[in-house]
Every structure is written in structure tokens, then in C-alpha cells.
């Protein structure tokens, strides 16, 4: 296991300073967009744990995003909870849901698991509309959430405050995720992905690790859903169509499988590329989106994070070479 060297730590510190300065440099509407990017980044890290590190493909993570969002919305709207208290609950609910879904799904490998999760993603909008839970979910109408005000002492706008709130969660979850993935559990996850039989022979409890990975992955995605819902101030079944699940998977692959920093690149992609596609063509925005997607996959087959890694390695080699001479 390798920690961060001093240069990398310094780089992260600079990034953090930039992240803190950002909401004061751009308009509130941009701050709102970047807040959504942060929420997506958390979801993508969650999905990446499952798909990138553990090798289980999920086509239904939009469902966990929806559960997280609805948990936050219902707690705020029906139970009158403060927004900040709903986030851990959303995470916990999704952890349980993910773990329970992971147990039977364990028997399914590869494509079969993909289809089972696909079913979950497709079913979720309809489940949310079901009349037995309509009293809480608001049916097709959804739930409108009141946007939280910043505490008076900060002097921040609502958007700026939410940005920092999300940023705090990003920091917490990424540090935890970094520790988890670089540690014993992370190695077990990768081992199961690459050599399941060998992993079992080494004493890894395959079933437990896979289920837990599913649970933790859902937890991350659920927290992201809750943060996203609070930022958007509205949840409805139509917000969490099956396309969301595909979007999340796209983000993971574009950002870079089995890469922590890739979550940010992927999040930027899924937030902004559809807008750019819409600017280019109203007649076929999805065709433009598809072309961009293919272009990315051709030029950066290991995702943006992989591309950055390769570029840095080349740069370092060249620099190293010149100092020797």
C-alpha cells in the first residue's frame, strides 16, 4: 500500500483551496450546477466501487439514487427533519437496501447481474408511483422540498451554502473511500474481480465482501441522491427514470474504471455534455451525445483518469530522462 507523497498532498491542498474559492467566482446558477457535479461524483465513486473495483455491473444504481432522494424528501417534508439530518439516514436506508439486494444477486454473475439490476432500475419509477406509498411519496406529483437557508453567520447565498455542504460530504466520503479501497477490503474486492477462486483460496469471504460492496456502493449513491434532491428541491418518479442508471454507468466508464479521481471527471461529463449536445443540435441531441461518447472511448480507452495517469507518467519519464542527461 502506498500513501500520498508530499507533492500529491500539496496538489490536493491547492485543489481544495480552489474548490473553496469557486462559489465566489461564478454565478449562483453555476454554483448550483457544480453542486450537482459533486453529488454525481459521490454516486459515481459508489458505483465505481461495485463495478470498477469489484467487477459487478449494475444497471440499476439510479434506483438507489432515487431511494436516497426520496428518503431525504420524505423526512424533510412529512417528518419536518432538518436537511442535514436526512443525509446519514438516506445513506443507511440505501446501505440496507443495497446489502439485501446484493445477497440474492450474488448468485448472478456478469450479464445476469446486470439484467437483475436493470430490472430494479426500470421498476423504480413505477414503484414510487404506487398507491400504497402515495401518502409519503406524493405519487406522480412528487414532493417539493424547501431549500435550506445558509446560517446567518456565514453570509452565504443558499446555493453557496449547499455547495459547501456537499463539498464537506464529498471530502468525508472520498477520504473514507480512499482508505477503504487502498486497504485490506479494497484488495479483497479487486482480488474477487480478477481471480475469484484464488481470492477464496486466500481466505476472502467472497459472499460477504460482495454483499458489503453492494451495500456500501448503494450507501454512497443514496447519499448522492439525497444531496441532489436537496439541491434540486424536488423529487418525482420522472426524475429517476432508467436513463439515470445508464448515465451513472456512463460516468463511471468515462471517468475511469477503478479510479477514485475518475468520479469527478465522469461527473463533469454527465452534467455538462448533454447541455453541450443540446447547444449543437435540437434535432438530435442524443446523436451528438453518442458521438462525443464514442470519441471519448476511442481517445481515452481507460477513461479520463487513465488518460491523465498515462500523460503524467510520460511527462515524468521525459523529465526524469532529461535530468539524467
Amino acid at each position: 500500500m502506498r500513501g500520498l507523497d508530499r507533492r500529491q498532498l500539496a496538489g490536493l491542498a491547492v485543489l481544495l483551496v480552489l474548490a473553496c474559492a469557486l462559489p465566489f467566482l461564478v454565478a449562483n446558477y453555476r454554483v448550483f450546477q457544480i453542486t450537482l457535479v459533486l453529488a454525481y461524483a459521490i454516486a459515481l465513486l459508489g458505483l465505481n466501487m461495485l463495478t470498477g473495483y469489484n467487477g459487478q455491473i449494475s444497471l440499476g444504481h439510479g434506483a438507489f439514487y432515487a431511494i436516497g432522494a426520496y428518503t431525504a424528501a420524505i423526512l424533510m417534508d412529512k417528518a419536518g427533519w432538518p436537511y442535514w439530518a436526512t443525509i446519514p439516514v438516506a445513506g443507511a436506508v440505501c446501505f440496507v437496501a443495497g446489502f439485501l439486494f446484493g445477497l440474492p444477486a450474488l448468485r448472478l454473475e456478469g450479464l445476469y447481474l446486470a439484467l437483475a439490476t436493470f430490472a430494479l432500475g426500470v421498476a423504480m419509477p413505477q414503484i414510487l408511483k404506487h398507491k400504497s406509498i402515495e401518502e409519503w411519496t406524493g405519487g406522480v406529483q412528487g414532493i417539493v422540498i424547501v431549500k435550506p437557508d445558509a446560517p446567518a453567520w456565514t453570509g452565504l447565498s443558499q446555493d453557496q451554502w449547499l455547495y459547501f455542504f456537499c463539498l464537506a460530504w464529498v471530502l468525508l466520503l472520498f477520504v473514507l473511500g480512499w482508505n477503504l479501497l487502498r486497504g485490506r477490503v479494497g484488495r479483497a474486492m479487486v482480488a474477487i474481480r480478477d481471480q475469484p477462486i484464488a481470492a477464496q483460496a486466500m481466505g476472502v469471504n467472497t459472499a460477504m465482501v460482495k454483499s458489503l460492496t453492494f451495500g456500501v456502493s448503494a450507501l454512497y449513491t443514496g447519499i448522492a441522491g439525497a444531496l441532489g434532491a436537496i439541491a434540486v428541491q424536488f423529487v418525482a418518479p420522472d426524475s429517476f427514470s432508467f436513463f439515470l442508471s445508464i448515465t451513472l454507468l456512463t460516468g463511471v466508464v468515462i471517468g475511469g474504471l477503478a479510479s477514485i479521481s475518475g468520479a469527478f471527471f465522469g461527473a463533469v461529463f454527465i452534467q455538462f455534455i448533454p447541455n453541450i449536445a443540446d447547444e449543437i443540435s435540437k434535432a438530435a441531441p442524443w446523436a451528438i451525445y453518442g458521438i462525443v461518447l464514442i470519441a471519448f472511448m476511442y481517445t481515452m480507452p481507460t477513461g479520463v483518469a487513465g488518460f491523465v495517469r498515462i500523460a503524467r507518467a510520460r511527462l515524468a519519464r521525459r523529465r526524469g530522462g532529461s535530468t539524467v542527461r
Partner: protein
Amino acid sequence: MSQHRTRINRRTALGAGVAVAALGGRAFAQAAKYGPGASATEIKLGQTMPYSGPASAYGTIGKLHQEYFKVLNASGGVNGRKITLISLDDGYSPPKTVEQVRRLVEQDEVLALFQTLGTPCNSAIHKYVNAKKVPHLLLATGATKWGDPKNYPWTIGFNLSYQSEGAIYAKWLLKNKPNAKVGILYQNDDYGKDVLKGVKDGLGAAGAKMIVKEATYEVSDPTVDSQILTLQGSGADTFINITTPKFGAQAVRKAWDSGWKPLHIINNVSASIGSVLIPAGVEKAVGAVTVQYYKDPNDPQWKDDPAMLEWRGFMGKYYRDGDPKDASNIYAYITVQTMVQILKQCGNDLTRENVMRQAANLKNFRSNLLLPGMSMNTSPTDFYPIEQGQLAKFTGQLWEGFGDLISTNAG
């Protein structure tokens, strides 16, 4: 005006007075007032449309609007100002609508929003635009909740609302079949309940006696066969069918095949010949009744109608990509005409307040693509532009309008 007057001194007062009287229009122009998104040369409007996603068939509405404004701008615009419509894709996804509308309001600073499409999408921005005091005009959705001037003074819908539609059926029944025994099938969600409320409110006290049975279904149900049999078994002789297309087709077929054959009222959502009546079998729907409020592009009786010819000319010359059989293109033409009317009424006071005032001040505005005799009216307490419709009977080939226009104030 008052500003203008304070500037002139006593000596020129008389001459200026004459000048003002003579150049009334010019003087008025000097007093022009502009809110965000408006200037002496341009008016910026914004909208979100589902150019991608599950509802992308409706994207044609936004495309027609843009072509219309292009043509209008080429001939001088409105009161000398060009109209810029910034139309953004939201993929029918509410979070995206919020994002795009915030862009329109905070970055592009549009004067007003026009025809944002979809009930969930508009629900997501309802509070926001009212808090920001941005005119949220002529929404492309049939929900009744958009006409609520007390709580949402910046939002005004367009479509004949679901409740109005239900009330029109009720009114017609009360007049023409007061002894009807009514069976109702409705989709168990806010849309179904919205139409149902219109029917019940319209029937009033008589409703308790007339409605003999109500049945519901879920969108996830495979069929509505058992519900139809229940309604048939209740002895109802009139069937109000409040369903979405798939279930509409099932209901039409079952109500015929079971031998029930009641007077069949099909709500507008399921009145499509192509997606409901043909799959069900057109012979099974002969005599069914629905409501219309604008001219059907496929109805031969409007073949040589001047307004229809004008519309067809527009479609052929400026919007070739659009389908001249698609009723959405008629709808879009009417809504954009209405928007232009509101802007015309604003004159040179292009503040958001005045736009809203004028949107709530449509007086007998006629678009010739509406059914003959129809007009739009709004007031500070009435935020429903369309409150009239005409019933139409299915002949086996097309919907044929009959009877007078029926008005409602049901909302």
C-alpha cells in the same frame, strides 16, 4: 411620461405640449420601460422542451415556436423588437428542468418563460419562478393546478384543464341525457382524479344519483377488462373513459366485445385515432364522444379553412421537418400566437410585472385555429385561457364536431 414632463421648462411648455399631442406615439416610446430580457431592439423569452427523452415527440412544439419567431422577426418582430426564444432541452427530467430554467432566469435573464412542457417538469420549477417573480406563461400541460393566482401569481397555464374537460362532459350529459346512469373508469393518479373531479363538480347535486359506479386502475395493471365488466354489471348506460392511450384502447375494445355498448365518452388524452381507436378497432368506437378545442389537421372539414391554409403554408415553407398531420403543430401555432398577443398588449412597458398583467388580461383573443367561435379570456382572478370546448363524435374515420361550444368555469 411623468419623467418627460419634469424635464421641460416653462417657456417650451406650450410647444412641447403640442408636440406631445402630435407625436403621441413617439412620446410614449420615450417612456418605454424595460425589465430583464427586454430592450428597444430585443425581447428574450425562454423555455424548456423535451428534445430528447421519453416525451421527445413533443419537441416539435418548441421547434415550431422558433421557426415562427424567425419569420416574425424577418417581418419586423413585435412593436419593432425582435424576439429571441432560448429553447433548451430538459429530456422531460425535472432536475434538468430546474437546472435549465435557472440558467434561463439567472444567466440569460429572459423576460418570461413560455410553454415549458410537462406536468412534473413544471412542478419542479413552480415555486422557484414564483419566488423569482418571473412570468411563467402558457404552460404546456393540462393539470388544473396552474391556475392559482392567489398562491402562484406568476404562473398561468394554457391547455383546456383536465377539470374543465370533465365539467364539459358533465354539462353536456345534464342537458342531453339527464337520466343517464354513469359508470366511470379512471386512472388512479392525479391526472385521473383531476378529470373525475371536473365531472363530479360539473354534475353537482345530480351526480350522486347519476354516477352508479366508479372503477380505477393502476398504470402497472395489465388490462382493465375486469373493471369494464364491473361497470357493465352495475347497469350503467353511459361510460366515461378517463384513461391513457393503452388502457383507452383496451376499454374501447372490451366495452364493445362484452356486449355492453354504452354511450361512450373518451377523454381527450385517449382520443387519438392512430394510437387508440385503430388498435382497438375503429368500428368499436363509432359514436364515441370526446372534446376538442382546436381544429384537427386530419379533419377534412377544415381542408380549405383559411386559417388551416395559412398554417399549412407556414409548415410547407418554414417548417418542412414538421409533420403536417401532427396536432401538436397546430397546438404550437396557437400558443405562439397567444404569446405574441401578450407581447403586443405590453406595448412599450416590457417589465415582468406588465407581462404578467397582460397575460392575465386577454380579452376575447381569437386564434383562427381554435374551433369557430372560441376565444381566450383571462383576468387577475382567472388564469385559465381556454375554458371552452366542443364535443365531437367519432364517425369511424374521424372526429366530427357537433353542437355548440360548451363553456365552463371549473378551472
